[in-house]
């Protein structure tokens, strides 16, 4: 007698079981624990004062100047990084989608920044931007674009901009790959048809390319937003959050609060706010594209 096959639901969850188990054990528990901690006043410097305070940590955020400032910095940072990433990645992907001599080499180079750990990236850019001996200074001086060596990272705007650039450089490859993969799947017949219709380059881009890119673009937006909000390694090494608070993103503030000030309660609250923001933004993206009929699980 044939065995009754497992129902679809059961089969699906059985297949997901190993992943679910690993993630629940190792991630769900710490996540839950950190939420629980965020509901407490918990600072290692005053262990006797530890007690449950409900949502007080979260409510205090509205008056927390450091937090609000870091939120502004983060928002701006994400915006700048996303803008540059999307523009650069899209352009590079379009270039790579063409055939030309040296394309393979360019593709290899495009993967280079991905191979670099964030801390190495930060150290590298720090030497490049160095005020006294940096390569950027050397290059610009030799090209005659600046008079003398500048201290790029000592002004708020300078530090912010260059840190964002360092972050973009490090995370560009992943976006390029996703967009390039998206471009590669566009059937060439569509281009041919457009050419027959005598559509110019821009028209072709708008009518043929863009619709197919919406899905990969969505992925890039979601992932890059997540990464940019949580970005830590590069900023930490490059500027430490300074000068002043110019590059103190919420991730940096969070790490400092938890590890240096040992305020676990508040630090966990910060972390959950980051999570919430990332979640809301991601849902925003998805909803936007869902309505255009381009999203499916």
């Amino acid at each position: 007698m044939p065995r009754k096959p497992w129902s679809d639901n059961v089969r699906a969850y059985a297949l997901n079981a190993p992943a679910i188990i690993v993630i629940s054990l190792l991630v769900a528990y710490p996540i839950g624990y950190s939420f629980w901690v965020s509901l407490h006043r918990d600072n290692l410097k005053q262990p006797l004062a530890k007690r449950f305070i409900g949502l007080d940590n979260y409510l205090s955020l509205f008056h927390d100047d450091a937090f609000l400032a870091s939120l502004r910095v983060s928002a701006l940072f994400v915006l700048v990084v996303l803008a540059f990433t999307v523009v650069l990645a899209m352009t590079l992907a379009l270039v790579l989608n063409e055939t030309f001599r040296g394309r393979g080499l360019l593709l290899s180079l495009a993967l280079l920044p991905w191979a670099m750990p964030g801390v190495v990236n930060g150290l590298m850019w720090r030497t490049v931007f160095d005020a006294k001996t940096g390569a950027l200074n050397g290059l610009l001086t030799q090209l005659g674009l600046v008079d003398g060596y500048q201290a790029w990272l000592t002004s708020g705007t300078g530090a912010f901009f260059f840190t964002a650039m360092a972050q973009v450089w490090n995370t560009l490859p992943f976006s390029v790959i996703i967009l390039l993969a998206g471009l590669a799947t566009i059937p060439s017949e569509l281009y041919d048809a457009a050419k027959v219709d005598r559509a110019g380059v821009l028209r072709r881009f708008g009518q043929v390319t863009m619709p197919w890119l919406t899905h990969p673009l969505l992925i890039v937006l979601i992932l890059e937003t997540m990464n940019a909000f949580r970005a830590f390694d590069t900023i930490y090494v490059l500027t430490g959050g300074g000068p002043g608070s110019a590059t103190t993103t919420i991730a940096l503030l969070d790490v400092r609060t938890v590890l240096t000030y040992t305020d676990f309660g508040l630090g966990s609250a910060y972390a959950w706010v980051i999570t919430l923001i990332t979640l809301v933004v991601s849902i925003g993206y998805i909803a936007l594209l869902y309505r255009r009929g381009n999203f499916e699980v």
Partner: protein
Amino acid sequence: MNAFTRREALKLAGLGVSASFLAACGEGGGGSGDGTVRFEGWDYEAQLVQQNLDRFARLNKDIRVSYTPITSAQYVQKVVAEFTGDAGPDALYVYDDSLAGWVEAGYLQPLDGLAGVADVYDSIYPSNAETMTYKGKRYGLPYYTDSQCLIYNAEILGKAGFTTPPKSLDELTRQALKIKNDGLLEYPIGMTAQLSDTWWAWVWGLVFASGGEMFADDHTPVLKSKDPTTKNVFAWLRDAANKSKVLDPASLQLLPVPLDNAMMAGQYAFTIGARYALRTYNDPAKSKVAGRMKLALVPGLEDESKGTVSNTRMYGLSANTQVKDKAVKLLTYLGGYDRDKVPYTAKFWFMQRGLGFTFTDLAKDPDVVAALKKFADPVVYQELAETAHARNVLDVPWYTEFETEMHKVVQQVLTDQATPEAAVASLDKTAGDLKKKYS
């Protein structure tokens, strides 16, 4: 005073083999249960530490010590994580600004009444003894201390026509301006003003040298209303950076190691730093300006220096150690006297690396004096030790947060984004907010 920062820590970073036998390889238990004393410190000169520990092992055949150096930039975080997980070491290095927090968190136990401790406290400088005492109890034996001093390049000063270092901040500006206008250096003064997790000793040094304080002994801030010294020091900083332009704007990007490199390359004429930096600056193997670097009292707002700031690094004893007696023996070997009534380890560190000592007797030790003469003027060195006092606000749980805020504010002053009045007002407010938060 050296500053240990999250990266480029001049914090006495590590070299040396991590011949480490971390019981954590697989185990994490506090106390490996086999009588070994677990000792941890930041990774400054780990090789030398091990060398010294080997000597201890030879003299105490019944005690095994397992030493793990930890990257200085993350030392505090890692130790905190270990103690939180009940896996703390038995004996460890402690920074003076961690002491209060670690005692409150229950990591350390007092050393009062233990053999050899009282002797030590009787023979060290009072400011060090005070720093290692918290709420009336003694928690540490001294590792080393240092005070901030003015470090200057005598050769550059000579070229500008100066034979003595400046005694006041006004004089410092004058001398720096002459050096600048003579075309010797564009920015004669350099400071480490990059944000970091550790304190900016030079700011405190300047305030103390001017005879001022940021806080009263009861931890209320006086920097805004009652004591204008800090505000005036900030004013001097602002002018030095923006008006006379003798303070390098790139200082905001300088961490201790790059500053050292710059000093040793002769790129600055003045800085404020720890005394022991001179040992490196005057080392011909490492420095282009060896022999020309000298130390002087920190100039203040007044005509004469009124003192300077010192800090103390110490050895502490874990509260939950299972091998207390053995650990105490180790601690007294490291931080106290040996059988011949000589503070062996303290002298060892001075002779090897010029680290400041807390024992007043050592100042008269002929070996010490001879070694000292090679890189610094013993008279000034001694005077700095004697006129130094510690920060009086280390006892509060919010000190680290205040210090971080102070860094940002000073950066704003240096870049002329905040007036000195606004700066001290903001720090005053910060102190008030922090006090409330931690009450």
